[in-house]
């Protein structure tokens, strides 16, 4: 026994060494191949007389961008123009994720509803949207949006300062006026008080067993105080109305048809997938649990909130993480309907500059970063809803 024990040590060590050595060699091979690819690419670019490097990012862009979140004009740099595209991608993805989730949950719940008509409508929606290429959905939404709206000269006036036309929706832009600072401070205090009340209600219920409507009470506190503050500070928010002049509306906030079509298309498409995730989540909860809760006389809302949802989420969240990532990647189809997202603007930069490798690397880096962040957030959320096994 003793001999074997001593003898096995160097054997084990050798095994470990061999394994380390092999892993090191594989790693070196991968790095080596990557380096060779990089070097030959550089060499080929040089032979073909194609410029490389990122110096172009500081050069003047000179390209037009129709829809930008930040101040932009063509004398800005390529790097800045690309940033405008990244922000547009982020905006449309973030909004689409929020609304697709809301719609998706509604569709998923409708799918398992006892109401025959509702369930069938949801099923038809899911099967149609899920089985059509997103590009077709986008073209369809865009042409329907454009075809159904009037020329800006004959814009539909929704209310004073609200116009709907082929140029998109124009709204009054909120402008801060005198007393705005005080108003904001007051609103913050109102929010704080509302949250304190909500938390107190929860604690009170745990202590005494008597239920106090914490959420609605808090909301009422916030609403009342905020309205009072608005009146007291003498209407601190003004508005800049859009005006039709020459060919187009000037001033105000604009929601362009390209943005709207992309957003609607992404929401409709992704909600179909999320709806299926929600349905599978709900159906994964054993019917016996719901029946048991009902038998105890627990109200329907509480059953949904405390029995059904926490368990359904365990199945729903991992699948939905994938759909969020797909949604972000799908937003690159913006280029087909003229929305200036990162891919559209990057494509223009390639056309003007010819430096495709750099731009494609930047696209990949941005998409990778966004999706890794989504994945991280969803994993944290997932960890919180999973069963903690003791």
């Amino acid at each position, binding site marked *: 026994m003793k001999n074997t024990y001593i003898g096995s040590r160097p054997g084990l060590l050798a095994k470990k060494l061999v394994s380390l050595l092999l892993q090191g060699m594989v790693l070196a*091979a991968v790095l080596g191949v990557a380096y060779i690819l990089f070097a*030959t690419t550089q060499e080929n670019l040089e*032979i*073909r007389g194609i410029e490389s490097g990122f110096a172009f990012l500081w050069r003047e862009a000179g390209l037009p961008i129709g829809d930008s979140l930040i101040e932009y004009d063509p004398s800005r740099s390529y790097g800045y123009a690309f940033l405008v595209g990244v922000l547009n991608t982020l905006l449309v993805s973030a909004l689409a994720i929020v609304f697709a989730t809301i719609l998706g949950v509604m569709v998923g719940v409708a799918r398992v509803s006892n109401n025959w008509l509702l369930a069938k409508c949801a099923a038809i929606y899911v099967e149609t949207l899920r089985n059509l290429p997103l590009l077709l959905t986008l073209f369809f939404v865009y042409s329907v949006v454009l075809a159904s709206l009037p020329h800006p000269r004959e814009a539909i006036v929704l209310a004073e300062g609200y116009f709907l036309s082929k140029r998109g929706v124009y709204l009054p832009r909120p402008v801060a006026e005198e007393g705005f600072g005080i108003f904001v401070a007051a609103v913050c205090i109102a929010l704080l008080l509302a949250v304190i009340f909500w938390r107190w209600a929860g604690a009170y219920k745990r202590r005494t067993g008597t239920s106090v409507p914490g959420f609605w009470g808090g909301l009422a506190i916030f609403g009342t105080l905020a309205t009072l503050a608005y009146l007291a500070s003498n209407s601190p928010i003004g508005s800049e109305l859009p005006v039709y002049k020459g060919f*187009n509306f000037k001033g105000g906030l604009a929601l362009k048809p390209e943005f709207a079509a992309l957003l609607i298309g992404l929401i409709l498409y992704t909600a179909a997938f999320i709806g299926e995730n929600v349905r599978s989540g709900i159906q994964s909860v054993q019917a016996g649990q719901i029946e048991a809760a009902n038998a105890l006389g627990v109200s329907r809302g509480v059953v949904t909130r405390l029995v059904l949802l926490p368990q359904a989420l365990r199945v729903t969240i991992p699948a939905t993480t994938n759909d969020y990532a797909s949604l972000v990647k799908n937003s690159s189809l913006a280029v087909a309907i003229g929305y200036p997202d990162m891919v559209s603007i990057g494509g*223009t930069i390639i056309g*003007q500059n*010819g430096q*495709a490798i750099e731009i494609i690397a930047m696209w990949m880096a941005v998409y990778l970063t966004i999706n890794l962040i989504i994945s991280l957030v969803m994993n944290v959320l997932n960890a919180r809803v999973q069963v903690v096994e003791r």
Partner: protein
Amino acid sequence: MRSSAKFAAMTAVMLAGTSPTLAGTLEDVRAAGELACGVSEGVPGFSNANSEGIWEGLDADVCRAVAAAVLGDAGAVRFVPLASKQKVLAVSSGQVDLTSRTTTWTMKRDGAEGVDFTAVVYYDGQGFMISADAGISSATELNDVTVCLTTGTTTELNMTDFARANNLTMEAVVFEGKREAVEAYASGRCDALTTDSSQLAAFRTGFADPSAHVILPEVISKEPLAPLVAHGDNQWKDVVTWVVYGLIEAEELGVTQANVADMAANSGNPSIQRMLGSSGDTGGLVGLGSTWMVDVLSAVGNYGEIYERNLTATLGLERGLNAQWTAGGLLYAMPIR
């Protein structure tokens, strides 16, 4: 040891596989028996597949002329439709042998994007089209307009330059494809459409009521359109350049598709004799056969015939700048001798 030997072998393969094969496009095309020619995804008059799938247009005929000169067969062309932003990259990376696709000759493309331009086949300029009932007669009145255009071209740069120089505000809606941009304009999303004037004329013919749209008189840029080849293959560049000059020279000398055979046999004009290979061997100077221009002209005709067939007959475009230098235009072929 074995794995390191494998690694070395793999390295060799990768190096060989990625080594540039730039020189010798002429030999490559002869070996393949076919010319890979980059064209547009559909611009009437320049390169556009007809209802039978046959590519028509001035740019497509330039591809055929090069194939006829190199392979003796104008049909040996593989047309590769390229999106605007691919047109330079496809040729610099060797995906196509030649791009003949309404591409503007600019210093940046020539100098820093790995391509060489050959000879100008069409002198164009960017213009604006707007609905006739807008009551606009000059591009300098285009303030606060929304303009539809396509990405990946010099069009965007020209438009913003023009707007900045004239203190105009123009809002751009930039599309990936020409068709989407034209449709968005037609549906009223934009007030104006901007691209090369020749293409505006081409697209206008496709509208339900062409007379409801006007092309404004201002030409805001110089757009010399030329076929392009990969940078560094001088022989191939010479071949394409001289085929284009041959087409132009043939018009100047009056050699047509109909009379080329007769001219080759009987013409007493030394310039014609040299060009058609009846005396001397001009084709041999760039690595082609001596009857290179006979093959080209009997296949597609001279420049004037190509222009008439593709641009005048269908789109009603005048010769304008694209007339021979002897007729007040800019076409001036270098002497073939």
